[in-house]
Structure formats: C-alpha cells, structure tokens
C-alpha cells in the first residue's frame, strides 16, 4: 500500500474541513432547488385537484393511479440505505476498509432497488395514461420525482466510483474518511428529500376518504 499523501494544510478558521463545509453549502442550495420543484407540484395540485385526463379522454384520479404499497416499500428501502451509509462512514472512520466496502455495496444495491421501483412506477403510470405531455400533473410529477431519481443515480455513481477507488489503496486515513463522509452527507440529504416528496406527493393523496385535495375518489375502487 502506498503512502497516502496529506499535505500539511493550515487548520481552518472554524475547525470544519473545507470539503464538509462546501457540501453543506451545496445542500443548502439544493434545499431551495427541491423547494421550488415541490412548490410547483403542490401549487398545481391545489389548482387542479381532480387529477388528469388520459388519452381516451377519461378523467383519472390520483389515488387510483398510485400504488402506495410499492412506493412505501421503495421508501423503506431508501431509508435503510441511509442506515447502511451511516455504517459505511463509521467503518471508514475506524479504518475498517472491508466493512466500508460491504456496507457501501449495500447502499448501492438498495439505491438500485429504489431506482428500479421508480422505473417500474414510471412505466406503469405511462401505461395507465399519465404522460409528461397530457397534463400539468404529469409534468410536475415526472419532473419532480425524475429530478430526485437523477440525484439518486448520481449518488449511486459516486458510491460505485468510491467503492472501486478503495481497491487502489488511496482511499484511507483522515482524507479518505472525509471523502466518504461527504458522500454520506449527500446521500442522507437525497434520502430526506424523498421523505418530503413521499409525504407531499404520495401520502397526502390518502388523507381522509377523498384525499387532501378534496376531490379524490374514495379508497375503495
């Protein structure tokens, strides 16, 4: 194993490493990013509470479209991936590189399951008649959840690169732990954003017998 070179940088003014600070700043910016997207969705949902019209001209209700069991499952999987990510960061801090690899593979695997569910969901909704072109709901739903999915995909790509990088022997020491921790911050953030999307986009449709927006169908189909 070659020596990991760590140039002697002056300690930072705040004691927080640059990489960690810049990631927090990025996440602050990303909060506004998702805030704007979620606001767009909610504004239009309030304006058009009745759902959308499919290609045959039938009025469709969101409760009949969503498969809340599947989305709950994928949400749970994403939550658990955050748990594994925390274990991976902890392993890295302790210098347990094998444990790090095991856990990070788990995160990647769970992340892929989540993405797979999203692909299935998108395909399913498309066949149910919801497209990005045929309604405002389709536009806001696909762009919002698709943007989140893109964030997850970037996170998975990042973790895969970190996983293979760990075999070069250069991922180690304080710098390596910091690199993994920063990736972890990103992953946890993407996870938290999904909790908000899951609540604001999916769960509210099931609040009360006719949904939060007031004009959904009763739960019995």
């Amino acid at each position, binding site marked *: 194993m070659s020596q990991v070179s760590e140039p002697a940088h002056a300690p930072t003014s705040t004691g927080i490493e640059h990489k960690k*600070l810049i990631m927090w700043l990025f996440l602050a910016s990303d909060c506004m990013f998702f805030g*704007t997207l979620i606001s*767009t969705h909610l504004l239009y949902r309030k304006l058009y509470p009745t759902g959308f019209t499919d290609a045959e001209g039938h009025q469709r209700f969101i409760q009949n479209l969503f498969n809340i069991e599947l989305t709950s499952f994928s949400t749970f999987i994403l939550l658990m991936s955050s748990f594994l990510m925390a274990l991976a960061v902890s392993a890295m801090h302790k210098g347990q590189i094998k444990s790090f690899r095991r856990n990070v593979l788990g995160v990647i695997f769970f992340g892929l399951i989540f993405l797979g569910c999203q692909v299935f969901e998108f395909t399913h909704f498309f066949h149910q008649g919801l497209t*990005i072109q045929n309604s405002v709901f389709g536009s806001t739903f696909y762009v919002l959840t698709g943007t989140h999915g893109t964030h997850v995909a970037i996170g998975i790509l990042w973790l895969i*690169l970190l996983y293979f990088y760990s075999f070069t022997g250069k991922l180690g020491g304080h710098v390596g732990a910091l690199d993994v921790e920063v990736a972890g911050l990103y992953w946890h953030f993407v996870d938290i954003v999904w909790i908000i999307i899951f609540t604001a986009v999916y769960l509210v449709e099931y609040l009360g017998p006719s949904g939060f927006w007031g004009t959904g169908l009763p739960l019995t189909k």
Partner: protein
Amino acid sequence: MSHDSHHAPVASKLDLAPERSDLGLIRPDRKTGWADWLTTVDHKKIGIMYGAFAMFFFLVGGLEALAIRTQLARPDNDFVTARMYNQLFTMHGTTMIFLGVMPLSAAFFNFLVPLQIGARDVAFPRLNAFSLWTFVAGAFVLNSSWLFEFGHLAGWFNNFSWYKSLVYTDFAPANGWFSYAPLSGTVGQADAALHAPRFTGVGTDFWIIGIQILGVASLAASFNFICTIINMRAKGMTMMRLPVFTWMTLVTSALIILAFPAITVALIELMFDRQFGANFFNPSAGGQPILWQHLFWIFGHPEVYILVLPAMGIVSEILPTFSGKALFGYPIIVFSGAVIGFLGFAVWSHHMFTTGLGAVPTAAFALLTMAIAVPTGVKIFNWLGTIWGGKIRFTPPMVLALGFIWMFMCGGFSGVMHSSAPADAQQQDSYFVIAHFHYVLLGGVLLGLMAGLYFWFPKIFGRMPNAGVAYLASGLVILGFNLAFGPMHYLGLAGQPRRTHTYHAGNGWETWNFVATIGAFILGIGVFLAFANLVWTAFKGKKCGSDPWDGRTLEWSLSSPVAEYNFAQSPVIAARDAYFEDKHGGRRIAYENDGGEAGVHMPSQSWMPLVAGFGFLMIGLGMPMLSMGVPHIGWLVIAGLTVMFIGIWLWALEGPGGYMLKTPAVGSTPSAPAHQTATTH
C-alpha cells in the same frame, strides 16, 4: 515517488522535475504561455481572466445598446428591424447582467478575497478554474446565437431541411432578459416529436441553456467563496475585522446559492415545455404563465442585489482610503448589507404589481420594498459620514466612487417611487423603469466597478493608469450617462413604452430621445476610453510602488504584482484596517513563520476544469440545435455530458497534487516575486 519529491521545498517551481498526477500523467506546470493561463489555479490569474472577459462583454453589450439607441434616435426609424430590435435588447440585458457585471464582480472576488483575508488561495483552486471556464462556455453559447442569426440573414442554411421546417427564425434570444412565459414557452398539444407549438424561435433555447450553464459557474464560485471566507481567514482576522468588500462578497455569494436554484428550476421547467412538450407554462393545458414570473423574480430580485452589493463593498473600501479616515459605522454597514440581502428575498412581487396579486400581497410587498430603502439609506449616510471632515484626495477611483453615491441615490429615489403600487401601475413597462434601473445598475454598479478597477489596477499589474485619461473618461461616463438616462424619466412619464422598436412623431418624444442617443454615444466613448486606458496600463503603464494610495487592507502590504504565494509568511491580524494600523497605528501585523524552511504549500495546475467546462460548451451548443431539428445532433449533447463526466472524474482521480515553495523572509525583498529571487542564486 514524484509526488513526494514535490514536498521538498524549492525556491522556484522551475527547479522541480515535471510533476506526475495520481493518474501518472504529467501535470501542466508551465509558468508562461497560453497553457499556463488555460490550466492555472491561481486565484489572481483567474481573476484577471474574469476581468478581461467581462470587459470584452461590456463592450459587446455596449455595442448592442448603441444599436438600440441609434434605432430610437428619431421617430419611425428603420436602422434595425423590429425583429432585430427584440434580439438586441434581449441580448443587451442578458449580456450586461450575466456576462458583464457578474463576472467583473467575480474578478474582484477572485483577486481580492484571498488577499484581504490573509490566505494563499481559495478553498478549492481547481473548482475556481472550473467556474471560470464554465462561465466562458455559457457566454460562448449565448453569443453563438448571434452567429446562427448571422448565418440566417446571410442565407447559409437555405438548403437544409431542418431550416425549412422552422416556423420562427429568431436565432438570437428575443424575449427580454426575463423571458416571460407564455411568450418564451409553448401553446397547444405536443406533436409526435414531443414539440408543442412555440411562440418564439430557437433563440429562447440558446438563452435557456446559456443561463443554465452560467448558473452552474456562479453556484460553484459562490460555494467556493463562502467556504474561503468562513474557513481561510488568517489568525486574528475575526468576522468583524473583515474588509467590507469581503463581507459583501460573502453576502452576495449567499444570495447566489439561495436565489439561483429558483431560476434553475424555472429554466428546467421551461426547457421541458419546449423540448419535451411538458405543460408547466402552457396555458392551453392548464399551465400558469404567472408561475414563471414568480419563479423568475424570486431569483431576479436577489439578482439585483447580487449585482449591486459587490459595488457597495468596493466603494466602502475606496471612500475611507481617500478620506484618510476609517469607515464610519463599520458594523452597521456590514449589518445593512446583510439586511439588504435578507430583504432582497421578500420583495420579488414588486416586479409584478400589475399582474393582479390582490390587495394584501400588493400592500405587503410594497411595504417590504419601501423597507429596503432603510438599510440602503443607512449605508449612504455612513459613506457620507466617512468622507465628512476627511482629507479628501480626488483620485480617479475616488471621483468614480463619489459618482457612485450620487448616481445610485438618484436610482434609489425612483426605486422608492416604484415601491408604491399605484404609482408603479403607471410606470410599469415605460421608459421611467429603464431610467430607474440604469441609474442603479450603470450609475451605481458600473461606476462602482470602474472605481474598483482604477483603485486595484496598480495592485494587480504594478502599474498606475494614466490619471488624465481616467479623469476624462470618468467625466464622459458621468456626463453621457446622465444625458442618456436622465431624459428617460421624462419620456417614461410622458408615456413612451419599453421594448418597442420605434415610435411615431408627434408624441413629444423626439427631442429627448435624440438627446438620450447623444448621451449614449458619449457614455460609450467614455467607457471605451476607460477600458482602453486600463488595457494600455496593463502592458505599458508607468510602474508604481506596492502601496500607491496609502491603502488600509492587507492586499496593500504585498508586492505589486502580487507573488504567486501571496503571503511569504501568514499574517496575524491585530485590528480592522490591519495594514493601515500597521503603518500608522500602534497595532502591528505579526507574521507566522509558516513559510520558512518547510516552505508553503502551492496547488498544482490542472487541465480538468477546462475539460469539464468544454463538456458544458458541447451540451450548450447541442441543446438549441436539437431544438432546431438538426439531425443526429443529440449525439453532441451526449458527447458533451460524457466529456463533462470524464473531466470531473479525472479531476477527482488526479489528486490535488501540490508542491512546497520556499518564500523569502518578510521585509527582505518587498517588491520582488520569489522566482526572481531564486534566479539570483
């Protein structure tokens, strides 16, 4: 291992064997020539490049403005077509804001912030280079629309089938700098190719992707600067000892990272409408065009403060220097800057008073808008307090800074008039609004930035600009500016509408439009003269000492031009206005011996930021051509994404690198850079 050898201290990087990155590739380390400029991570060189690009685009935007004024010089003129006029005013606004003022501010951020806080570079030197090249890519994408427009007018595309199928052929953006939906968006149902009918040509697509790329550049730079200012201050440089310019950089960067996501999302939504037939702003499918206005102005109003706060910071440095007094009320000036930034997020709807928001929101936004005049007024009174009773030296930067206060106040007063919603309903879309924001952006921001250029140019190049030419240029700018925009107050109140390519005789607008055009040309000559003087100075100007103005902040304690490592030894700060206190007060700057035998750590240069920026250029050129229907052009977008990814990936893999540089002891060679010292050994 070559990596280790670079951690044995040397007096000059030229003493080292070429450095290999962690990938095994030889890193660029030429100290001269174009490769050095393309791969540099030195914040000072990046700042100079930002400044050069910004001044170039100022001239481009200025030429567009002169074409507009020539068209409006007399009634029923036909100097340009209505179609060309739309493209001119759109590109004028977009160029001046995103390619002129913001990068010129970024030039000051880059050059000054590390020097003012006592650091040797920014927190992420390669990310800083990435911001520069991404900005250049975005600027190129936006202006390449003119090349397509030229090709269209010259008939180059006549034989292409994609060209024949275009409904609208405005190749340069023509929606105004705000690109209001639904004019910029779509209407009706998307066809099989997912394209819904549009109101405008592909110029809008150039605008969307260009602004998106410029946003990436601004965001990356802002993360970097916040990190630098918070984390890399020298010992003793507490937050309340920071120079005000650095404070305003911090506030501006915070505004950018919180405001730009709104426009990013709005642009994504508009892009989905145009490219993939989505319905965000498509009125026939239930989309609400007003949402675009909200999203745009949630970004757009903070953007106004993103433009003006750096200029306020510059003026806050210049006035004390040439008044021989400390800045009056430093804490309240800093606090006012932060309050302006905070309130800047709560006033966006005053751009939309005439859209019918309802009485309560209109009243609330009117009140908040009036409230923002309070911290601004506080700043102006503090600047007056600073020069009050001082021994004023009327140097060129001081003249321009005083011009800033005067002109900016005029713009502020008409701004308070707009904040009253009933008055605004009369002024909306008239030349009165043009007069207002040009007094703020030109009389305020441009004069502030020019003052900063004339103030810090001796530090950047070690050469003093010609004062006679500078006074002449300042006089021409202030005279021409008032001649051009003063009459527009009257024209606006007399009913002349904005964004209209001509007007008929007999409305009583002829005289003042002609005067405004003469003023615009005087202004153009003044700005050109001011810039030409600077360019000449950079190469041929008379050499000057390191502290020609009796400066107050840390950068004046360094040699001119500044050595690549900035500080031979890290300063330990004992007071606000640290260098002035060091020279004239009792509190000296101490120096830590961190640049002694071990040397100081210098970052290595890299091609990767340029590669990643080039990827953005390919995406930016590909997306509008995709919208034109050029066959197979989607591959250019995919290739661009790939190049961007590879650039970032190799960037991560090559490692930060770096080498140790031995610096001379403080005081031994106050005006000679290190490598000059080294060659004498």
